[in-house]
């Protein structure tokens, strides 16, 4: 407790103007930045996978399974930041057994379970069922056991059964698209519905969260595809990269437009909170908002991707550019979440002052825990790739450009 007070006294000494005394402690820290970030990556990666399946975009085939597995890996970790940030984490299950129906947060448990159990796991299972059966036959030792269990006892791989797998999988994907929209639009609603906070309270928030989720998910798949290809020492498919780049370009334009619209609306109306929000943007959020989110995370990728729509330089240059773009977009969206979550707590609801955010290193809400939580989905992703390697699936033919 002493450390906590020391931290609060330090923040108190850095308060600008007047803030309510209870506002000195900034309650939603980096873990709540991670929560919408990770959930967004899930929704975005899944939507990209669905595009391939529902709209039959063949050129995206090499990333289809990667997207699904990435979505699962990140979804499995999505609840951890939420649980870690509770002051009473041992009570988290109450949200499932006695949910308050008027609370947007209470519904998250159900949206999450729906998405995990009904959408993602089902889709992956139907997609891999035949391979589970065949891998169970081919493998030895513990792997054989794992694959046998994963078949859930359904070992019929007659053409008729496989056709049903395909049909049901398709149906789940169709349900999955609105579910992915719901998952992340809903996360936006958690913030957008807080009328006490003018930085959050916006009907645009769910839509902005949704599009930024798609941007980050597409960038994630681009990044993972290139990394996985590099590790497997096979060239990533250029047509696939170009197509993902093209999608990223379009969705990024939409996302940027929506966010700009939200800000323009806020400036034009210039309500009571306007002066405070203006100071917030030009002061404490200047670097994370204008430099990182807008310039590095949005404008530069837009220029590069826009250029590629008209002029295509050599493949090597395009590859490197796509790789860099995927990273800066991922960083940009992380800071978009940061600007929403942290930014919304830096000013006082009295509109007379600002508090300060100091990231602590150790502790429940510290940087180390956050880095661990961010690294965890990548570890799960690697494990799932080992367990469910898409390139060893029996109907996949390697696509490469040489």
């Amino acid at each position, binding site marked *: *407790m002493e450390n*906590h*007070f020391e931290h*609060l006294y330090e923040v*108190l000494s850095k308060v600008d*103007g*007047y*803030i*309510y*005394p*209870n*506002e*000195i*402690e900034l*309650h*939603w820290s980096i873990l709540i930045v991670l929560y919408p970030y990770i959930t967004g990556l899930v929704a975005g990666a899944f939507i990209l996978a669905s595009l391939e399946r529902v709209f039959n975009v063949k050129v995206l085939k090499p990333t289809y399974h990667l997207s699904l597995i990435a979505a699962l890996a990140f979804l499995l970790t999505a609840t951890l930041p*939420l649980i870690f*940030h*509770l*002051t*009473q984490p041992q*009570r*988290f299950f*109450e*949200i499932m057994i*006695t*949910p*308050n*129906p*008027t*609370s*947007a*947060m*209470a519904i*998250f448990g159900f949206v999450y379970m729906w998405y995990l159990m009904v959408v993602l796991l089902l889709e992956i299972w139907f997609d891999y069922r035949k391979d589970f059966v065949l891998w169970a036959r081919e493998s030895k030792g513990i792997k054989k056991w794992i694959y046998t269990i994963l078949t859930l006892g359904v070992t019929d791989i007659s053409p008729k059964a496989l056709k049903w797998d395909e049909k049901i999988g398709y149906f789940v994907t169709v349900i999955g698209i609105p579910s992915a929209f719901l998952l992340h639009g809903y996360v936006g609603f*958690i913030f957008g*519905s*807080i*009328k*006490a*906070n003018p930085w959050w309270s916006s009907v645009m928030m769910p839509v902005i969260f949704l599009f930024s989720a798609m941007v980050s998910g597409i960038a994630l798949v681009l990044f993972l595809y290139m990394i996985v290809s590099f590790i497997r020492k096979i060239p990533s498919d250029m047509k696939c990269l170009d197509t993902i780049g093209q999608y990223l370009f379009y969705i990024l334009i939409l996302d940027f437009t929506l966010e700009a619209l939200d800000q323009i609306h806020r400036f034009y109306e210039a309500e*009571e909170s306007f002066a405070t929000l203006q100071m917030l943007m030009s002061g404490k959020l200047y670097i994370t908002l204008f430099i990182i989110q807008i310039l590095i995370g949005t404008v530069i990728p837009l220029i590069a991707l826009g250029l590629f729509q008209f002029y295509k330089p050599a493949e090597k240059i395009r590859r490197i550019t796509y790789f860099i773009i995927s990273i800066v977009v991922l960083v940009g969206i992380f800071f978009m979440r940061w600007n929403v979550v942290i930014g*919304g*707590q830096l000013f*006082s*609801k*009295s*509109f*007379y*002052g600002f508090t300060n955010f100091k990231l602590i290193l150790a502790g429940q809400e510290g940087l180390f825990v956050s880095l661990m939580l961010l690294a965890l989905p990548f570890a799960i992703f690697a494990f799932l790739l080992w367990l469910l390697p898409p390139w060893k699936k029996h109907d996949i033919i390697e696509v490469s450009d040489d």
Partner: protein
Amino acid sequence: MGVKKTKTDRREFLEKLAIIAGGVIAVSIVKPFGSILFAAVKRPETGPWYGMGINISKCIGCGNCVKACKSENDIPNEPFFFRTWVEQYTIKNDETVVVESPNGGMDGFSQSVPDEEIFRSFFVPKLCNQCAHSPCVQVCPVGATFESPEGVVLVDSKYCLGCRYCIQACPYGTRFINPVTNVVDKCTLCYHRIMNGQSTACALVCPTGARIFGDINDEEGELHAFLKENITHVLKAHLNTGSKVYYKDLSPNVH
């Protein structure tokens, strides 16, 4: 004939059954959406309906109420945890506003603005507004924050997760995490006292009678009279929280 009749009966029965089943399904799908109407529905007021009146002109900024509250409710003394606090507003001649509340006003105030620059100065006591459709109650994911039948917003400390969504949702900054209990804490309008017929600690110790605790529905009561005789305002009225803390002489500069 008989056979035909049976068929018609069965059909009718099945039709009715389908209508009932369809109706039940439709209602069970639509009903949860009723929860979006939380802030739009007015609650029926029966029995006592507690609130507070605050006469800003009478507040002298002595800080007794803050001290009494901390001691009555065992709130840690550090300057980050307040169930109630007092703000000093100083409107300068150039129309800028200086707001101060050192240690929540617990130790009284000194004026940092030179006399000749002051246009007007006054004190504003703050506390939970005991909203009739509280944003905090609306957002609590587990119902640990709730409104008592008497209109007091309370927290079940054995059920609170500490997710702090309610702290974000409160427009008045009246909630905090109590470092001892490690769950959310707020003004209970001294529920343990008022349910025994006593006044709140803050109202009791106020030397000028700036805080008037009472039952809004009690037509003979002090609060009823205060509301009848004075023009009062609530804080952030545009947010429609149903605040039950009524301020007399509230300046528009106060948020």
